[in-house]
């Protein structure tokens, strides 16, 4: 039977441990990017990758995925975002081996696998381009409430596509975790992505 003094010390120690554990828990939940855990569905899709092969979300499990919806004929916003994400990969260094950028085309009519391949590889080797039938693209866009719309073509047949510009971030198990925009700095995105990568190991 412990003495009252020893009992008091044990109680303090237990209390301190509990406090530390709660503090650790609170710290683990603090992200710089928008925390969407539990608010968006797990990553699921059936599309065609830029190597021409059919892929599903399972093919990317084990990696932190940064998913962005865009199109290759977009000269300003999409390349700016892709350059931003490429800089995030650079910042991650070797940790980027466990990260993937998924560029999902909202313009499957023009974005063939070959064109997507040239496009994503001009930015970063961790990037993949995804295309598919209009229905397959629509299913994935709907899943994450991404809006997109073809605008009227001009005399030369060129047209633009209006689209939402969020960056959806999933952990290695495919759970939606964070939402970033291109106004979040390279350092901020890299910091949170690195934490997601480290928490899986």
């Amino acid at each position: 039977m412990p003495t009252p003094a020893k009992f008091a010390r044990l109680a303090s120690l237990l209390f301190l441990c509990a406090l530390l554990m709660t503090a650790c828990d609170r710290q683990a939940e603090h992200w710089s990017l928008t925390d969407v855990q539990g608010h968006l569905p797990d990553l699921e899709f059936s599309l065609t990758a830029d190597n021409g092969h059919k892929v599903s979300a399972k093919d990317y499990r084990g990696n932190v995925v940064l998913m962005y919806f865009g199109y290759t004929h977009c000269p300003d916003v999409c390349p700016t975002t892709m350059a931003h994400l490429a800089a995030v990969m650079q910042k991650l260094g070797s940790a980027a081996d466990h990260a993937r950028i998924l560029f999902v085309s909202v313009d499957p009519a023009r974005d063939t696998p070959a064109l997507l391949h040239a496009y994503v590889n001009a930015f970063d080797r961790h990037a993949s381009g995804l295309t598919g039938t209009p229905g397959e693209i629509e299913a994935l866009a709907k899943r994450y409430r991404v809006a997109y719309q073809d605008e009227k073509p001009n005399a030369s047949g060129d047209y633009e596509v209006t689209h939402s510009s969020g960056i959806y971030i999933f952990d290695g198990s495919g759970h939606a975790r964070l939402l970033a925009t291109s106004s979040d700095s390279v350092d901020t995105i890299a910091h949170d992505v690195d934490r997601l990568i480290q928490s899986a190991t």
Partner: protein
Amino acid sequence: MKPLTSALAILCLASAAAASAVPGTPPAIEVQNGWVRWLPGGLPAAGYLTISNHGDKALALVAESSPDYGQVMLHRTVNNGGTEHMEMVERLTIPAHGSVKFSPGNYHLMLMHAVHPVAPGNTIHLKLEFSDGSAVDAELKVRPPTQIN
């Protein structure tokens, strides 16, 4: 003789005055820091630059073209709470003693249908026409897609 000599003198002075008024007057419009973000596969590329107006009157950019591209259009990216789209800009005012900077996410020139292969490291030219009838030849350096600015 005297009136003719006087007339000739006046004529000489007048032409001298006229000649000196034109050289030494700097052009109102200056274009600097022009660059193109190159994309592969002949995709439309974005051109960015800064236009400065050193004159006392506001001027508007009213037309743009290029010997290197079949089509050049001035656009502005607009962000409506998370949705991005591009608006065509017909006329862009450059204020007197002011400047307008084109940059990613804002004003940009959409460069389409290159007439010959264009690659990072090249220099391309744009002809910018203004509301006072003047035109400026701008040089833009072509950069790889990963270069941030």
